[in-house]
């Protein structure tokens, strides 16, 4: 692999171009493979497309760039502490609008750290939600029949359907 390549260009699913440094791209297996393909092929003009929309990809790249130095070289405890704080700030975002997209992008890009972080953040947010709030966010209809609801209420007296 040529060491002169420091960053690669990728396309989002919306067709926008993004630059990502080689060390940041290494956080994702598929990106890493892509990287090797790009560098070894003769035709370097081809820009690979990542099936993630622009808004999400910006955030994913931001996460990669922040975590890359630590992932590549290891870090001290104080760095890890600082990174944890950064993660918390980074995850302050709208659930439906962006968090779920990041979660799915992390899954698709095989990024374990980001995936765990996104899942835990989503779980923490759900803890404080009512049943109807959850239905709204997940676009779920209450598909219980009235008999089933009655039965559930008997089994779980604290249960609320809204």
């Amino acid at each position, binding site marked *: 692999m040529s060491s002169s390549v420091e960053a690669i260009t990728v396309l989002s699913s919306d067709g926008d171009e993004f630059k990502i440094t080689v060390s940041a791209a290494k956080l994702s297996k598929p990106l890493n493979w892509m990287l090797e393909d790009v560098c070894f092929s003769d035709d370097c003009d081809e820009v690979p497309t990542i099936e993630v929309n622009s808004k999400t990809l910006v955030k994913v790249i931001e996460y990669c760039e922040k975590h890359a130095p630590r992932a590549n070289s290891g870090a001290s405890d104080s760095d890890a502490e600082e990174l944890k704080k950064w993660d918390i700030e980074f995850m302050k975002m709208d659930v439906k609008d962006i968090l779920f997209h990041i979660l799915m992008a992390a899954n698709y890009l095989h990024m374990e750290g980001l995936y765990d972080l996104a899942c835990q953040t989503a779980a923490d947010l759900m*803890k404080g939600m009512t049943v109807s709030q*959850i239905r709204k966010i997940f676009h779920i*209809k*209450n598909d*219980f029949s009235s008999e089933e609801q009655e039965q559930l209420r008997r089994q779980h007296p604290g249960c609320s*359907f809204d």
Partner: protein
Amino acid sequence: MKKFHGSLDLDNLFNVLSRVPTNNLLHFKCISEEWYYIISNNRSFIKVHLENTESTLSGFIFQEKFICSNEDIKKISYMNNTSLERHHDNQDTRSNATIHHEMFSFLPQDVVVLSSCNGLVCCRSCSVFSSPTKTTLYICNPTNKQWLSLGCLDYSKHESIVLTFDPYKDPIDNSTKFHLVRLKKVEIEKENEREEDQDEDGVELSHYFTFELYSSTTKLWKKSDEICYYDGSIKKQGIYIGNVLYWLTDADQILTFDLENQLSLVISTPIPSEEFKAIQEACIGEWKGILCYLVITEHGLHVWHLEDYYEAKWELKFWKSLEDIERENPKFFLNLKNHVLRRVASHQNLWMDPLSFKDGVLLMKVFVHVYFYDIGKNLMVKACNIQDLSTNSLPCPIVLPYSLSLVPL
């Protein structure tokens, strides 16, 4: 990649839900049929959920027992510790814990609770004792109201049954594996006295203990070869921590049984009670996988950790004087130290009685009130009045810590 629909596909949903704590997750059963299925009946989901969430204390089960009478007391109370969390979130602090009396009403009979472990509870049917008495054993999960009957057995009042269930060691993929350990006190008949009925110092013993093990896989009881020649009596319910069972005895000692090598041991508690003026009461419990010994004396509340099992090495991890406890909680306590030294006028009841301890939370009775004390957070919250739990105000009730669990049976 799957198309976004503003919501998650099943795989990702599964991974998010597996990180939601059990008490919140239970409410999500009502969202839709699909969610109900994932949360209620899906062993692979419940297994991942166990791996991704910490099992936390949800509350305590309380049931009184007569010391002399042969009758069982049917009333069971459950108090959840959500008031501790509410307090922590700076919400309403004055309301007491909700007390539930119907926790085991899904079982076919009235029961006496025996042991609780990682969300499962072992109970026996109520009866009038003419020792030994036929009683039915049940294993149940009060959260999902599932239960199993293990059939009848001859039960006497001087025995203890402890449930051991470790979903981390025995994954619940296909079935839920658990064990029971039955500790039996066997009286030695004097006419058949032999030399082995004496302990190391040649002191005559009146009884010894035997161990019987039940496995959910074989559905059989098997008697262990181990016999423990020990003169004390079991005072409270046994507990199970990391393959070892512990029973607190009335002689400031702890009788232990190691499941792996099936050997028993008697270890001394850190401080003998003669050291103190006030007759103190103690309890044992688990904190982060370690056995703790809690004792309240005129010098305060002491929490000891068992550092070394074989050498019975204890380390004092926490101590707070009664004066400090009183100063920090002026709305609850007054003259604690004097009361503890004098005790209540009654001959049986202690002023401060540690009832049960788990995950850093102590349930204690002080005079006629019951409190949760979160030692880690130094937070005292009133749970209820003792009348809410008991009608007889008897000493030595059965108190079991309980954690909500999705584990199917």
